[in-house]
């Protein structure tokens, strides 16, 4: 499954080969975390550091909340035609103290999710462009033992 040629839908937010992780940023002075990753000023008002460095985030977290889109989002989302409903989950990463939103692995719907459920980072194709190139995105996928079904 691993393919180093995978083109991410956005650069630098996640690894494109296993183990899949999100990439955040961490302040070199106070240690606070940021996602999405960026450079520049630390968001902590009591820290004047200008150094945030990229850091892999925990692969697993717990569902804070979730929903399921029943209508195609407007552009710049590239929606499949016909549109297939899909789920989104906001997931809490305990060590980093972050809640991060993501698409849920295709085929896993709201009815399959619950607040507190353990999920982990995986990748799937977000869309295929006009040149036939697949653009990949991170997803939250239920950890095998946690699936309701």
């Amino acid at each position: 499954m691993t393919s180093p040629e995978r083109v991410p839908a956005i650069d630098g937010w996640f690894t494109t080969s296993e183990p899949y992780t999100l990439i955040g940023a961490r302040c070199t002075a106070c240690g606070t975390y940021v996602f999405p990753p960026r450079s520049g000023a630390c968001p902590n008002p009591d820290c004047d550091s200008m150094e945030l460095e990229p850091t892999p985030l925990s692969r697993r977290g717990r569902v804070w909340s979730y929903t399921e889109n029943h209508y195609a989002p407007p552009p710049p989302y590239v929606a499949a035609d016909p549109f297939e409903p899909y789920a989104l989950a906001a997931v809490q990463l305990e060590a980093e103290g972050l809640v991060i939103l993501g698409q849920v692995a295709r085929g896993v719907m709201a009815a399959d999710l619950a607040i507190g459920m353990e999920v982990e980072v995986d990748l799937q194709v977000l869309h295929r462009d006009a040149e036939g190139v697949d653009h990949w995105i991170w997803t939250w996928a239920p950890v095998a033992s946690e699936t309701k079904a």
Partner: protein
Amino acid sequence: MTSERDLVVLGVGMHPWGKWGRNFVEYGLVAARAALADAGLAWRDIEFVAGADTIRNGYPGFVAGSTFAQALGWTGAQISSSYAACASGAQGVQSARAQILAGFADVALVIGADTTPKGFFAPVGGERKEDPDWQRFHLLGATNPAFFALNARRRIDVFGDTPDDFAMVKVKNSRAGVANPYARFRKEFTLEDFAGSPIVSDPLRLLDICATSDGAAAAIICTPEYARARLGTLEGTVRIRAVANTTPTYPQIRLELPDIATDSDAVVAAPALGFKDSIAHNAYEQAGLGPEDLSCAEVYDLSTALELDWYENLGLCAEGEGASLVRDGTTALGGRLPVNPSGGLSSFGEAIPAQAIAQLCELTWQLRGQAEGHQVENATVGLAINQGLFGHGSCTILSR
């Protein structure tokens, strides 16, 4: 007790909300002239114009203060234009209030108007990979209703709310909105109507989510001295007790539209008062009033479930107990503390830069006893609250 610092709302006016696609300036002029007539002022009397901007109508929308001043006819008035997403109107009020309290003007016009496209709110065009708004749409398809739904799901799974509780908010607000001549949707909905309403973002149905609308609202505010000179008395006037525009305190640990992630609380502990609680808290502090003093409130019901959050953020009940206030009729017209007696966004749809000013118009009519058909009996204190993107909280308290 009011003070000389509590400015007077001398006049208010609105253009009805709807969906016509006409130039937003046209709506704004109707609202401005209605507010001037209500105040008994001529346009030339206005010393300061505070425009609330719209980003969806080209350059004239970006400099709304100037656009409306020109449309009404240049008079050399002082000016400001503000954009703060849903809080733009409140930002206009703050701008006018600060200018007056600083002594640079005695009387000001605050004005906002919008024309909106159909369907989901989409980000403005272009490939802007650094823009969180572009990111959340392109990478996730995280629409505004999706964010409302994440919040609603928390209410169901954590607090035990039901979809019927959410529907009851719409039923309540639609009942109030029927009597409001400025509301766009003047139809009474029932719980039965929800069964046929399609799910947009689970668990929210189309009827749970506010539409986008065209509309305009304007208010004229002035010093007590100015009002006294015009009216002969301050008796019965509506006073501005608080305008609190508030940012979150780091770390903001509640996932809020349009962010893909929260701040981190791994190193810095979350503040005792969450962001939305702090918006109301700051306004209460400024006014020297509390939730027990309120006669009515206008809250930003972008979704039905969100209205229940506001009950808790306003301190009307403890966290998690919001649904009980709609179940027992407390927040309905005729209840102990009517919320959204205007019909709310559920009856209006949102006309972004005009909406916070429209809240002010409604409270003014309520406090004057002029909200025919949807009047809160003996209203003496009213609060309006909303939240713009990226942490632009706003809360206004009026009293008579």
